[in-house]
């Protein structure tokens, strides 16, 4: 008898275990998983943690609206720890183990490049929310941040036309984004008749903190009697000592304005901004933009994060747009299948936060307005100029000889991210 009882108990255990498993399986089927691939530790945690929170907020909100295709969305958060190879590993984990429907993530270009082969191999979906250097278009990636023609070129136009700048300092941190952007800008400036001797290019290491000689050089370069401006692709962290040194050496925004592409509200919240007033930044979004959509977004953000002092910034808006586009595309396709969604998402429109509508283009970039703002003493920007209409993101720059004739078009008949309009061929090189 005792044996029977034992066997019964064993069967019962096995059954309940199986039921537990089944139950879990059934619940997993009820949700759509969304991968969030942002560093929560290491160097990039400073910028990326905010984006993780933004995604959690957007998913939470969508679930309150009833989820997607009748299912709840389930965020899967992983921490690639600012470690580029780990980005690729975590992507593989998200796509194979968790089977996420889409990934929202990456910040630096190098992390995106490390993720690219994995999402292409496993046919995943990546939404990349940060302004970047362009020269890329993958079938599996959607670029919701600005391409160079949506940030750098309009900023230079503003300086040239409105501020009558004649001499240019292109200062950047020494890695792929500043190098490519400066190459594009240099070609653009030369095409506008700026002479070689009126362009100064300077690169500094990551986290550079001793700016004395460089700022003295800029001062010298700027005292040649022509209006001078600095176009800065200096990476977030190194900006604080850079601006401090500018202030201390008495270079005001009126004498030599600095326009930055990597300095947003989040970066400014760690700086005493009084000496920076009047310096510029170019983005597609500012927290100070006065629209009902933006006010609602900021209120929601403050409620979600439970801190009224937290700021919003451009990459957050990019995730907002990207997420809404993905939701609409999934609804349109009726499935989260990658191929169906990539087909459905082209041409999808979603409201941006500055009062317009963003549209997903066939080259996997989006159309956005470009805003130039001046830094204020409260760490916010005051918009001083903006493009009259939306600017369409251009994957391959028209100002570089090697990418002039290349376009990306992920619709029939071309269906290629690297199509040469001269030779009419699709290059095997995907990125």
């Amino acid at each position, binding site marked *: 008898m005792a044996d029977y009882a034992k066997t019964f108990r064993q069967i019962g255990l096995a059954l309940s275990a199986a039921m537990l498993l089944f139950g879990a399986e059934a619940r997993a089927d009820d949700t759509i998983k969304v991968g969030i691939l942002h560093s*929560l*530790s290491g*160097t990039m*945690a*400073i910028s990326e*943690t905010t984006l993780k929170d933004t995604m959690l907020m957007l998913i939470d909100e969508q679930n309150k609206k009833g989820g997607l295709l009748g299912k709840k969305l389930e965020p899967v958060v992983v921490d690639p720890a600012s470690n580029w190879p780990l980005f690729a590993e975590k992507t593989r984990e998200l796509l194979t183990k968790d089977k996420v429907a889409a990934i929202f993530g990456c910040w630096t270009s190098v992390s995106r490049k490390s993720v690219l082969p994995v999402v292409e191999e496993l046919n995943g979906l990546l939404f990349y929310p940060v302004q970047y250097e362009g020269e890329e278009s993958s079938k599996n990636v959607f670029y919701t941040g600005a391409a160079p023609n949506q940030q750098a070129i309009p900023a230079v136009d503003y300086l040239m036309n*409105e*501020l009558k700048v004649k001499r240019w300092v292109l200062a950047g941190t*020494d890695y792929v984004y500043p190098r490519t952007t400066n190459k594009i800008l240099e070609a653009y400036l030369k095409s506008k008749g700026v002479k070689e001797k009126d362009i100064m290019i*300077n*690169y*500094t*290491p990551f*986290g*550079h*903190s*001793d700016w*004395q*000689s*460089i700022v*003295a*050089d800029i001062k010298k370069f700027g*005292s*040649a*009697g022509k209006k001078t401006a600095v176009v800065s692709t200096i990476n977030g*962290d190194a900006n*604080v*000592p850079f601006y*401090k*040194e500018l*202030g*201390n*050496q*008495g270079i005001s*925004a*009126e004498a030599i*304005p600095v326009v930055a592409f990597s300095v947003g509200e*989040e970066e400014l*919240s*760690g*700086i*005493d901004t009084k*000496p920076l*007033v*009047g310096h510029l930044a170019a983005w597609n979004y500012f927290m100070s933009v006065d629209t009902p959509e933006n006010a609602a977004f900021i209120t929601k953000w403050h409620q979600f994060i439970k801190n009224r002092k937290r700021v919003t910034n451009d990459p957050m808006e990019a995730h907002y747009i990207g997420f809404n586009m993905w939701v609409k595309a999934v609804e349109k396709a009726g499935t989260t299948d990658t191929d169906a969604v990539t087909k459905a998402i082209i041409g999808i429109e979603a409201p941006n936060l500055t009062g317009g509508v963003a549209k997903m283009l066939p080259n996997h970039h989006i159309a956005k307005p470009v805003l130039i703002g*001046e830094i*204020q*003493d409260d760490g916010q920007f*005051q918009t*001083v100029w903006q493009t009259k209409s939306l600017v369409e993101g251009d994957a391959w720059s028209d100002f570089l000889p090697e990418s002039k004739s290349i376009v990306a078009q992920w619709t029939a008949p071309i269906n290629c991210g690297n199509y040469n309009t001269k030779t009419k061929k699709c290059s095997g090189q995907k990125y």
Partner: protein
Amino acid sequence: MRPLIFGMNGWCIAVLSMMMLGLCDAAESGDPFADALARLNEAPLNEMGEAVDRLAGIKDARVAPVLRALLDGRLYYRKDDGAIVFGDPAEDGLAIVNVLDGDALGIVAKFDLKKIGVNNALRATLRETLGRLELTAGDPAQRLKAVEAMSKSLDEENLELLHARLNTETDAKVSEAIATALALADLANEDKAARIRAIRALRGNLNPDVLNRLNRLLEKDDDGQYLEPDSDVRNSAQVAVKSIESRLALYRAAETVFFGLSLGAVLVLASIGLAITFGVMGVINMAHGELMMLGAYTTYVVQQLMPGHLEISLFVAVPAAFLLSALVGIAIERGIIRFLYGRPLETLLATFGVSLFLQQLVRTIFSPLNRSVATPAWMSGSLEINGALALTLNRFYILVFCLLVFAALLQVLKRSRIGLEVRAVAQNRAMAKAMGIPTERVDALTFGLGSGIAGIAGVALSQLTNVGPNLGQSYIVDSFMVVVFGGVGNLWGTLIGGFSLGIANKLLEPYAGAVLAKILMLVLIILFIQKRPRGLFPQKGRAAEA
């Protein structure tokens, strides 16, 4: 839509801005100042210049303060009635004062006001306009700024004002600035003698505008013709340019040395604590950078705890940071390192672990975002020596601070009881122990001293760079470099090593660029260590062999 201000008048402007300005004067309220003021609020940013000009054209004592407030970002309009007010930060809101009659209107929430914004172009206009209005101000510094702003656009009106001022000006600096401005204007005089006189007056002047203008006299136009037709004038300009350039070269060299010294001071501060723990005790402490980070965060906390006392916060932060970092250092020594003496590899790994632990701890407590540490007014700006040389004050004070810390540390090691014991243990541990020195306690205190100094260095760094969890990482390699270069176990070596590395780096930087300069420095040090493995000042005698 901004609220309209003076009823009828506001309506008029609204209508007319679509057609043309100026016809509406008859209907205005009679006070030209009030009308011009209202325009400030209504004009879009690209028409603000006209509004400012119009306001400046009115002879009224209230004009200058309004323009000054606009420039300083203190001018607001109240959303409910559109009144233009001065706003100054007060507790929970802004204290506002009506611009028109000077009545204090109490404290209101920031939300009820909207700032009247300006952009860069407008700021320049404002400064020039204010210059004209403030040329007769009582404060010489204010007059000097006024003259500088006016020099940017030397039209007839400005020149007349400057001429008139020169006769009554009493301050030597202001007079000199006016004379320079007038001479610059005279370079375009039609009379040849006047031009030569102006060049002579400008000889040796280090103002960058002067060199530009003189150089332009020597330029040729597209046809190969000199812009300046007269050869006498050109010759005399040539002489003046030469004299200015030779002086400039001298000051540039001085500037480079200062840059090098100040970079050196940072290196010395960062590495001097390590010189004690690594140099004297032989412990490879990878968490040294994080002890500096703790010091920087202490500065932040001190500033948060005593708002309103920004000017003295650093004086409180220095001892606080020393204590905190020293205590953490002693805890690390007692808790981990003492079990690992004589096993350098394990020590390295363990302290590296501690450094990661401290970083993540700070991330958890303070968030991964950088914290904003304010710079007191006495440390901002620069010490102007002349037009070509200006020493930035924060760097200058840190250089002084570094030397003070070094002197104090040297005194402690030379003169105090603990210093004696530290040196004794470093020279011969067994003998010191035999003499009754509690070596374990001395080890802990020595490590605490080195760590405390790292904390002090953190306070200095908080004034130069980001206060964030990664602060320490960026300095740890440099610190080891300095200690190894200077000679292990020698404080003077660290001082000289730090300064020479700083100066060498700054000499290389203009030619090689910041990235390559850093690499070259490392290569040079490797070569140097090959030649002299024990650094600049090697320890001599039996202690070195031990």
